[in-house]
């Protein structure tokens, strides 16, 4: 089994039984999410349980490419289970994180970990190659995520500094490594069962969405540590090496060849793309295992490994206060990583609290009483107080630890604040990201799923690049027509240029149904099962590549096949993605999903989009109007409720689902070998008709 170790670790926290699952049983699903969903489906008989239920099963999965030289895929780990964050239903959900945990797990001999049950007392899991133990975590309980990791490193290695080779285990062969144990842990927020608590690895790798920190807390699971010394077998090492060099030469940023093409690009962006620099603070790029792009940053003063919203959630308040980003942002980022709180939720919470405070509804002695120092907004002091209250469930944190949606419900503000958009939770209680009124494939994909989808595939060429150029008063280096042609070439099997028509008509079209289907299937397999990083794939438009044609769909199977020796085609991967998407759909249906629930928050249908994204970048997108392609500002748009419902019918029909219910029909499931899933749905009277 080249690329796989052959074993999945199974740990029952209640019985303390440690066993293995043969990876071969689930290999057909590829890896990562596909295997996680399949195991969840098999092991969890009642899927309509709460995320806090001891019967909840959490899977932590790698892929055949984890721990290999394949770029921007090697370091990702997929986490699944019933989450806590979504509202009103705690959907079966997913998150993932980068770093080096996935690789280390493979070197230790495991393709993944399945966590079942609830421990009586706090424990952590100590994995040293094939030796696995449950260890008392009482001494770690209450520690932040960084302190926890340092304590575990010391416990595992017996060392206080790590400059030398360390032996792994006690084998006479002398297995050794210079790498510290890779630890995934919760902080105080997770211990206190917060619905917006993250899992943290190293300094700033977070599985944030879904509330898995609280799930672990409910299981009394503090951390998993793994140190490994084994090898991953590669089918064609030369092909893997050459593929890596091919990607570097033809598709990547390299020192000395910086492009002047403005915009954010998937595979090829400059290092530290996701982490804004702080004036006067020295730094370096920081990358996950085997990444060629290294989108993060490490500085001399903090903010280490944090990127994107982990930084953005407070740096805008910081910049407003100080006229520039300061170390307050860096300290704020480190704080949420240490406490283990989801930055994306926190960003929206801060905006909401600010608005309520400004309206005189929230503050000392107000209707919503809080001692948060709003005069210190932008200073570290404000965010420190808010985060401390959140992690300890003190003050306003007694409510907010449950997430914004449930807090709004408790405060009696849910309906009105989601109607006005003051609280911008657009789908399933998750903060809006790229807006369902403008960049619709993002919103549609989210409401058809379980969470903010957070998949930047179409966002980069169709929104971000033209919008950044518009912001800078520049002409985008590639025309909208060329983008449509490139994407049509790359989006097998549809190959439809109108898939990126974000005009007022295009967003309700059958073409957009194909876009969303392609996106769902692509991400489910290639990104979430094989692990290709969202910030590098899909690579449609690439300023370094011949004809600006990015590395998708050549790269995805090229790296996978070099490692596994299989001859999987890109299209076969897409079909597996469709299968996984249908399996997930079945799980949600067993949790109660119906098409009637798949509606956005009212503000989406009633309030014009603000004209820009959260970070004040305009909404200029690719549109096809009157027979011509162009970039157009689509900000200010309202989503038409009835047209969206009609679009849903088109989408369900395209997927082979019953448009009345949104449930898959037997024929669809059978065509993918999911007869047993159809049987399960049928037994619950939830199989689509047709």
């Amino acid at each position, binding site marked *: 089994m080249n690329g796989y170790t052959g074993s999945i670790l199974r740990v029952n926290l209640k019985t303390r039984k440690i066993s293995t699952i043969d990876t071969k049983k689930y290999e057909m699903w590829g890896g990562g999410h596909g295997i996680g969903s399949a195991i969840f489906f098999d092991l969890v008989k009642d899927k309509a349980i709460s995320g806090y239920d001891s019967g909840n099963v959490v899977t932590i999965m790698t892929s055949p490419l984890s721990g290999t030289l394949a770029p921007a895929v090697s370091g990702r780990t997929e986490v699944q289970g019933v989450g806590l964050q979504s509202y009103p239903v705690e959907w079966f959900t997913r998150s993932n994180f980068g770093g080096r945990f996935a690789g280390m797990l493979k070197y230790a001999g495991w393709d993944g970990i399945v966590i079942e049950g609830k421990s009586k007392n706090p424990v952590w899991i100590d994995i040293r190659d094939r030796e696995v133990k449950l260890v008392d975590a009482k001494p770690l309980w209450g520690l932040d995520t960084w302190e926890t990791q340092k304590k575990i490193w010391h416990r595992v290695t017996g060392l206080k500094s790590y400059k030398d080779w360390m032996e792994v285990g006690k084998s006479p062969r002398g297995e050794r490594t210079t790498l510290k144990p890779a630890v995934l842990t919760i902080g105080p927020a997770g211990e206190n069962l917060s619905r917006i608590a993250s899992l943290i690895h190293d300094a700033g790798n977070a599985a944030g969405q879904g509330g898995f920190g609280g799930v672990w807390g409910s299981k009394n699971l503090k951390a998993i540590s793994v140190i490994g010394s084994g090898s991953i077998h*590669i089918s064609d090492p030369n092909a893997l090496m050459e593929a890596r060099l091919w990607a570097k030469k033809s598709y990547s940023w390299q020192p000395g060849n910086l492009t002047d093409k403005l915009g954010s690009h998937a595979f090829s962006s400059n*290092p530290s793309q996701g982490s804004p620099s702080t004036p006067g603070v020295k*730094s370096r790029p920081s990358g996950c295992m085997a990444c060629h792009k290294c989108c993060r940053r*490490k500085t001399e003063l903090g903010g280490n490994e944090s990127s994107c919203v982990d930084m953005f959630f407070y740096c805008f308040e910081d910049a407003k206060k100080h006229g520039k980003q300061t170390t307050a942002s860096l300290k704020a980022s480190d704080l949420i990583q240490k406490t283990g709180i989801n930055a994306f939720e926190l960003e929206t919470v801060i905006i909401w609290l600010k608005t309520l405070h400004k309206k005189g509804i929230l503050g000392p002695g107000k209707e919503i009483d809080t001692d948060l120092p709003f005069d210190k907004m932008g200073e570290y002091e404000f965010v420190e107080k808010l985060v401390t209250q959140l992690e300890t469930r003190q003050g306003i944190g007694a409510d907010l630890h449950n997430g914004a949606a449930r807090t709004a419900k408790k405060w009696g503000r849910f309906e009105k604040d989601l109607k006005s958009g003051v609280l911008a939770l657009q789908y399933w209680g998750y903060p809006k990201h790229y807006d369902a009124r403008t960049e619709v494939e993002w919103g549609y994909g989210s409401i058809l799923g379980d969470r903010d989808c957070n998949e930047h595939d179409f966002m980069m060429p169709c929104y971000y690049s033209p919008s950044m150029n518009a912001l800078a008063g520049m002409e985008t280096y590639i025309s909208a027509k060329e983008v449509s042609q490139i994407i049509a070439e790359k989006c097998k099997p549809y190959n439809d240029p109108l898939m990126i028509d974000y005009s007022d008509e295009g967003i309700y079209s059958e073409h957009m149904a194909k876009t969303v289907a392609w996106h769902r299937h692509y991400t489910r397999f290639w990104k979430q099962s094989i692990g290709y990083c969202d910030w590098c794939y899909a690579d449609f438009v690439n300023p370094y590549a011949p004809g600006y044609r990015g590395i998708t769909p050549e790269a995805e199977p090229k790296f996978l096949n070099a490692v596994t020796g299989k001859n999987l085609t890109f299209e076969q991967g897409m079909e597996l993605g469709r299968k996984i998407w249908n399996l997930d759909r079945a799980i949600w249906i067993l949790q109660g999903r119906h098409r009637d629930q798949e509606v956005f928050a009212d503000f989406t249908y009633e309030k014009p989009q603000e004209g820009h994204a959260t970070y004040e970048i305009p909404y200029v997108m690719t549109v096809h109007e009157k027979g011509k392609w162009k970039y157009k500002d689509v900000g200010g748009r309202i989503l038409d409720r009835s047209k969206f419902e009609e679009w849903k019918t088109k989408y369900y029909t395209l997927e082979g689902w019953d448009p009345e219910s949104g449930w898959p029909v037997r024929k669809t499931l059978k065509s993918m070998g999911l007869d047993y899933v159809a049987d399960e749905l049928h037994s619950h009277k939830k199989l689509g008709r047709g």
Partner: protein
Amino acid sequence: MSENGKKGFSRRVFLKLSGAAALGLGLDIGFARILLADDVVAIPVSQGYLLVDSKKCAGCMSCMLACSLVHEGKENPSLARIQVLKEPFESYPDDISIVQCRQCVNPLCLESCEYDALYVDTRNGNVRTIDPEKCTACMACVEACPFTPGRAVWNFEKERAQKCDLCANTPYWNEKGGPRGKQACVSVCPMEAITFTTTVPVQEGDSGYLVNLRGATWKELGYPTD
């Protein structure tokens, strides 16, 4: 002339001259060991060296994975002949170090080997390398390396020692390596934080091997170049 008046090289002069050969000045050294006039056995210097810039490294470990891949046909950081040490909670610049074999002018690993397994490969630019057939797994070379972590690597899977050969022998990469070819770690590093030189680095301390590779592009990207 050496101190005893006979024509020959002192150890120091020999090393200087053989270094000149590495610089391409024409002194062809076609042997692995030479008995010096002062009865010291010296060896020719390597004709190639890896230099690194730890301040430029992004910690992705691609160099380690490439090294393991082309030499062993497997992915295993523990088997890599170059290592990246990461301190996740330390701040820049104390958070990352690249540690590579120095192809020492005076290789203690070689001197420690009693079985002639560790030798100077004259066919590949005098790189210091290990003959796996002769290695007895005594680990003397692993212990003898004066640097931390040791640059002679214990391959616990094959139960023998191995070390950086500048990719002179990469059975799993169809590319000519060695001092006159390509090195996997140099080729793959996305930050270009590893480079190759034929010039003998200063042997005292780290300054000869730990260099500044951050140029104009690095500055343009907003990173420090000092």
